């Protein structure tokens, strides 16, 4: 059964009713396990927990790797370099295994030897220096253990080479600076705080967009399709609240959860990143201070509000056509993926918050957060982002008001999705004009 009548308007907006409806939605949602988990607990706990587990896991694996001994077979030690052999024998991470003429590539592939070092006579260009040698390390890049053995063997060889060259140069009265030639020195002018901001900016916006979408997802379905599935929709429709008040309250409720999820996520990450990562990085010799700049805070709030405002409105439009929770989830899913995909590309190194990027919805807001966390506030892209976001929200609300003017969509008897609706009702007028929607 299809009903083509549509109402003219949703009635007056009554803020007292909006407040009552909004508080009812919030109270109800906070008692729903799935919403609390997805919109509050996951943003707070999941990503800090995942990152902590990942980092601890990496450290653990690194420790295992450090403890693992590399079995290295050496063919023909150079007689004139007894110290080199001594260096290898003293290294606890290297175990020298006997070389036989049969030792070869196959042993590396089968894992009985991790790397093979062959000392060959120097070629013509290298023969200038007396006692010079040519070492070849055979290993398999596809075997983790073999790669590690190659790195360790190469490190030892290079270390010995540098020591030997320094010694030889000294014997000839040449200083290290003379034979080393041009020296390249790196100087990082970024402070520990700036480095922290940069790293936060690289990681947080990706999760921020995802979290806002996750935060909106279940409330959007719950407040539309869920309401129909529970048969509370008709109860609400028969109350004195105007349609406009009902939709406004629901929209604010969904946007609140999206915005709160985004802010909670950023706050949780900013707070946990310091105690979790700073000591670990310090241990690795990297000094970074993870402190959220006060100037970034208003931008994070603004971004959360704008992104949640847009995502909530769009998700509610998709879910408005669903009659069951499952249907609602299915209808929202493509948009959800569309929202969480663009921020994934934001980790591209060197990507700046430029004017063209400011025109792309979702990307612009996440770039604004990234930029603010890095203590950079480019005025023009920020202004464009604000205007674009408000325009997108306005467009979604306009589309929602058009959709909800159709009685069958409002009462849940329309059999189709947003795509079909746009095709049938907005692009092609229905054949029976007398019942077609009147604006």
């Amino acid at each position, binding site marked *: *059964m299809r*009903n083509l*009548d549509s109402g003219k308007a949703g009635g007056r907006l009554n803020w007292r009713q909006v407040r009552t409806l909004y508080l*009812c939605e919030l109270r*109800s949602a906070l008692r729903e396990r799935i919403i609390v988990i997805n919109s509050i607990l996951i943003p707070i706990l999941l990503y800090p927990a995942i990152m902590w587990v990942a980092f601890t896991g990496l450290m653990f694996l690194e420790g295992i790797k450090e403890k693992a001994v590399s079995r290295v077979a050496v063919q023909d030690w150079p007689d004139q370099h007894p110290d080199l052999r001594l260096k290898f024998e003293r290294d606890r991470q290297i175990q020298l295994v006997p070389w036989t003429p049969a030792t070869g590539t196959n042993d590396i592939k089968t894992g009985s030897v991790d790397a093979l070092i062959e000392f060959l006579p120097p070629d013509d260009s290298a023969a200038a220096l007396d006692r010079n040698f040519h070492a070849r390390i055979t290993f398999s890049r596809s075997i983790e253990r073999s790669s590690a053995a190659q790195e360790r063997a190469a490190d030892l060889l290079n270390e010995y080479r540098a020591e030997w060259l320094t010694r030889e140069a000294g014997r000839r009265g040449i200083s290290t600076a003379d034979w080393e030639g041009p020296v390249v020195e790196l100087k990082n002018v970024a402070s520990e705080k700036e480095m922290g901001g940069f790293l936060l900016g690289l990681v947080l916006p990706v999760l921020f967009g995802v979290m806002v979408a996750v935060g909106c997802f279940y409330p959007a379905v719950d407040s539309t399709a869920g309401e129909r599935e529970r048969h509370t929709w008709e109860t609400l*429709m028969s*109350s*004195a609240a105007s349609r406009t008040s009902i939709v406004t309250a629901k929209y604010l409720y969904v946007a609140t959860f999206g915005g709160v999820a985004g802010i909670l996520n950023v706050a949780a990450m900013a707070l946990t990143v310091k105690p979790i990562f700073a000591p670990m990085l310090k241990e690795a010799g990297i000094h970074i201070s993870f402190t959220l700049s006060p100037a970034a805070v208003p931008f994070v709030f603004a971004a959360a509000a704008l992104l949640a405002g847009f995502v909530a409105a769009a998700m509610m439009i998709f879910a408005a056509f669903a009659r069951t929770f499952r249907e609602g989830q299915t209808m929202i899913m493509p948009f959800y993926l569309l929202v969480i995909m663009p921020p994934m590309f934001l980790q591209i190194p060197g990507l700046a918050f430029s004017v063209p990027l400011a025109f792309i919805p979702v990307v612009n807001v996440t770039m604004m957060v990234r930029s603010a966390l890095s203590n950079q506030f480019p005025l023009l892209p920020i202004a464009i982002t604000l205007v674009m976001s408000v325009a997108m929200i306005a467009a979604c609300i306009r589309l929602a008001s058009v959709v909800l003017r159709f*009685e069958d969509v409002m009462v849940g008897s329309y059999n189709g999705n947003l795509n079909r609706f746009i095709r049938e009702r907005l692009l092609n007028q229905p054949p*029976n004009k007398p019942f077609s929607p009147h604006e």
Partner: protein
Amino acid sequence: MNDLPVRVNALQKLYADDLRGEVRAVDGVSFECRSGEIFGLLGANGAGKTTTLRMLATILKPTSGTAHLMGFDIVTQPEEVRRHLGFYSATTALYPRLTARETLEFFARVNGYPEERVPGRVDFLIQRFGIGEYQNARVDRLSQGMKQKVSIARTVVHDPPVLIFDEPTVGLDVLNALEMQKVIRGFRDEGKTILFSTHIMSEAEKLCDRIAIIHRGRIHACDTLENLRAATGKHYLEDIFVEVIGRAEAENLSRTPAS
């Protein structure tokens, strides 16, 4: 006659159906209801009862015709209409995650009941319907009978002068159905106007002061049970219903041109 709480005039609702084309769910229905009266809409499933009541509750918009509740137009003043109306049906469920008390407070407020009187009104209804023991329990943890009581209390929490009960006993066991009838009678005795739809003859016979027999979207008879008996010469409402429907079908056939 303008002070009648419910006035319905030539109300019509057309649908466009993918398979059947244009469907006249309600086709020019007219009636009036008085204060302190239970007005019954009696009809088979699909006769147009629910559509008529949903239009009066402003959930659906009529294609044509007019209707006024407490003097308010259902098309131009829907919020005012709903403020003066309590709507109950088998499909008006309660919010499962709110408690019984929160449910009543919410609907009192959203229906515009004066804020300062909300707690008193809620207390009164909790006592009246005997839900005191469960007032702080979540609705989804209440028994079916308790949910029904909360649902009725929800319908009248803003003290509306007009009540619509759309097949309220569907799905209820005998005892709960009898309890429902008792409650509806109680509201009538308080002077409320009640629109009651059912397809159960005995229920209409026991409860309704006047009965409208609706068939294929049209009202074919509307009077007191006594007058319907006199008009049809039948005693039982079941027989009266069959007689009226039979005449309507015959009339319909005689109007249809032979092919």
